[in-house]
């Protein structure tokens, strides 16, 4: 047998595990932008072909923003908690506390006081979660479930105690002040002209964009702003690095002198505060409720889902929340026919995907995508109207379908949900 030893430096030999990629990965923001462009392209084509302009009207995007906002806040809350390694299924409960706090604060001190009170109440929920999971090492899910129960119970109880005398209704607060809205008038008018111009693509993009610059509340701006802010803090600062390290390998972090407990506490306080603000966004926006029992209606869970959907990253969760808000808005505003049009859009998307897979010679994936396209096209073609009862759940269907189609590799923080005790690592 001949020797087939290849030459090479020892270092190369030991490094076969190294990144196999040769191409530079596309930066996250660019990828996000590409996704957005692709989505608008598909939507405008669909709206052109089906004649349903609800899909790209400015009111739809405005609605979408509004419906996405609580989910966005909750998802950001989830991000902070889970990046520090703590599963936060208690977002719902913290949101409920936030709704109560928002109404209470706003009633006595105006909208900003309401927002702050909401954040504080949410943060109290976060603090409780921290005490349970970090200090006592309680299973994160147990604690989350308990906080959801407690949040509900406490908010009801406080509402009975505080709001009942004011509003005569233990389940509702008295009317509270709401945030004013602002529009970028010039931009908005210009976009309105464009939207009215009925040019394929441009008008659609203008419509969608216009909704985002018209009648926007400071709270919505804050929410959108918090996405890049969260990114910056978590990925570009020393505090963020330490916080994320607690979610990846707390023992290593500890061994480098990071105070893991303190960081987890901080993360959970922020997380609860954000969830509380999510609650506030149900109370303090015009057209919303004041405090109203059960008004969160599972949005905390949806926020968690949006965050997982977004692969534990700020840009991704923004996409998740937007997707949910958008399809909910379309569904509410446009009803069954708009949802059918969405089906049509999905057919287009899948067709494109099929081609992409074919080009990349991934035949199985291409086949599946084609099959999905055909199936959805059949739905579109065979039905004039979908079962009325199912229409309200369009966003939920969309979320599942998108997750199933987008073959993304999720990368949760490594140590998420693990119990960590100081000095017990090895």
């Amino acid at each position, binding site marked *: 047998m001949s020797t087939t030893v290849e030459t090479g430096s020892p270092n190369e030999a030991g490094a076969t595990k190294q990144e196999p990629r040769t191409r530079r990965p596309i930066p996250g923001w660019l990828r996000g932008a590409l996704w957005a462009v692709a989505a608008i392209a598909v939507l405008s084509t669909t709206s052109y072909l089906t004649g349903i302009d609800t899909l790209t009207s400015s009111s739809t995007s405005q609605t979408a923003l509004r*419906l996405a906002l609580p989910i966005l806040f909750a998802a950001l809350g989830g991000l902070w908690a889970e990046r520090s390694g703590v599963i936060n299924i208690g977002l719902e409960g913290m949101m409920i506390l936030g709704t109560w706090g928002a109404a209470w604060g706003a009633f006595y001190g105006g909208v900003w006081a309401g927002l702050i009170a909401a954040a504080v109440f949410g943060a109290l929920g976060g603090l409780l979660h921290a005490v349970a999971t970090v200090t006592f090492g309680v299973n994160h899910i147990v604690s989350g479930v308990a906080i959801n129960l407690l949040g509900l119970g406490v908010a009801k109880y406080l509402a009975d105690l505080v709001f009942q005398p004011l*509003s005569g209704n233990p389940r509702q607060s008295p009317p509270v002040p709401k945030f004013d809205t602002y529009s970028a008038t010039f931009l908005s008018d210009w976009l309105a002209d464009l939207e009215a111009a009925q040019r394929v693509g441009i008008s659609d993009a203008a419509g969608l964009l216009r909704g985002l610059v018209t009648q926007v509340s400071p709270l919505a701006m804050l929410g959108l702003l918090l996405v890049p802010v969260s990114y910056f803090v978590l990925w570009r600062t020393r505090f963020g690095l330490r916080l994320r390290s607690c979610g990846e390998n707390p023992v290593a972090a500890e061994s480098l002198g990071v105070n893991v407990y303190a960081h987890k506490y901080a993360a959970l306080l922020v997380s609860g505060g954000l969830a509380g603000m999510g609650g506030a966004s149900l109370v303090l926006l015009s057209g919303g*409720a004041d405090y109203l029992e059960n008004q969160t209606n599972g949005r905390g869970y949806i926020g968690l889902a949006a965050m997982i959907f977004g692969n534990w990253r700020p840009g991704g969760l923004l996409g998740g929340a937007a997707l949910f808000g958008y399809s909910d808005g379309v569904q*509410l505003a446009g009803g069954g026919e708009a949802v059918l049009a969405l089906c049509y859009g999905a057919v287009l998307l899948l067709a494109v995907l099929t081609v992409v897979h074919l080009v990349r010679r991934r035949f199985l994936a291409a086949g599946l995508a084609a099959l999905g396209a055909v199936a959805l096209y059949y739905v579109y073609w065979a039905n004039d109207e979908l079962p009325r009862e199912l229409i309200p759940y369009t966003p939920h269907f969309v979320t599942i379908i998108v997750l199933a189609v987008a073959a993304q590799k999720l990368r949760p923080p490594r140590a998420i949900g693990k119990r960590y005790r100081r000095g017990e690592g090895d």
Partner: protein
Amino acid sequence: KDSGDNSAAGDGGESGGDCVTAAAPPRAEASSQKREESADVDASDLKVGLAYDVGGRGDASFNDAAAAGVDKAVEEMGVSDTTESTAAGTESEDAKQQRLTQMAREGYDPIIAVGFAYADALKAVAPKFPDTHFAIVDDDSVEAKNVTPLVFAEEEGSFLAGVAAVYKSENCHVGFVGGVDTPLIKKFEAGFVQGAKAVSDKVKVEVDYLTPAGDISGFNDPSKGNVVGKSQIGKGADVLYHAAGASGRGVFEAAKDADALAIGVDSDQYNQKTVAEVKDVIMTSMLKRVDVAVYDYIRAVAEDDLDSLPERFDLEVDGVGYSTSGGKVDDITEILDGYKAQIVAGEIKVSATP
């Protein structure tokens, strides 16, 4: 910054312009006020039990109305003792039974169950306490001697709402927002649509529900109500009628933002604290007088004269009606009363299903 306050909704449109195609009904003769408010009934030996549906006292809806009826009974007939208990959102069937049983056992009589959700519980409990009087609001499916159904002709009241809506609509386009797609809410829709069509043959009516049957979040989500309201307005509707519980508030705000009008439901929402900020868009409310029914029922029990109660609380007995607070329908009350008279007289039959 957007200009915060839109001026109060336009109260012009004297008489619906060219939308109304049917001739106004003949003027009704003096309204059927046959209720003789004699305060001589003494009910001091009654102990009234009130079992609420989800929401309970203070829900600004039918639970609250029932409470008002009892309060009035306490005040005017001297009912000595009352008890109240509220269903929780997710409680199981036997919690309802337990609630009724508990009251019966403690000697409350009559016991009023508010909401059709109590039907099954009542079926089970009533036979066990044959000497106790039970009443149930919104349900007539319980067949027991000691159970009195207190049901309403929501479709008749909604009919008038439909009439009023068309008269006030400038675009000849009105909308209905239902909270949850249940048979009960469908009655509202049915009456409203029939009323609108009765007045105009070219009126367009938008109908939307927030959630399907079983998903009660539709009664509790003002932001969704707001979105749907806006969308209906976007399609051209300018008078919106809601039967969506707390979500209705979102509908009101949508109307307010777009200078449209809205019609409240169940109680006189113009005077309701929780929607005080937007009350200037509420042109009228479809009244469902659960309070009257409850009061009358207690009175009938006190007088031991249950047969005096109507089979259905309808327009004729003022079990349903419309409110005039805010004065926005003052100009068309004659027309509304005309239609009311026709319905009472049986000249117009309002169907309970769409």
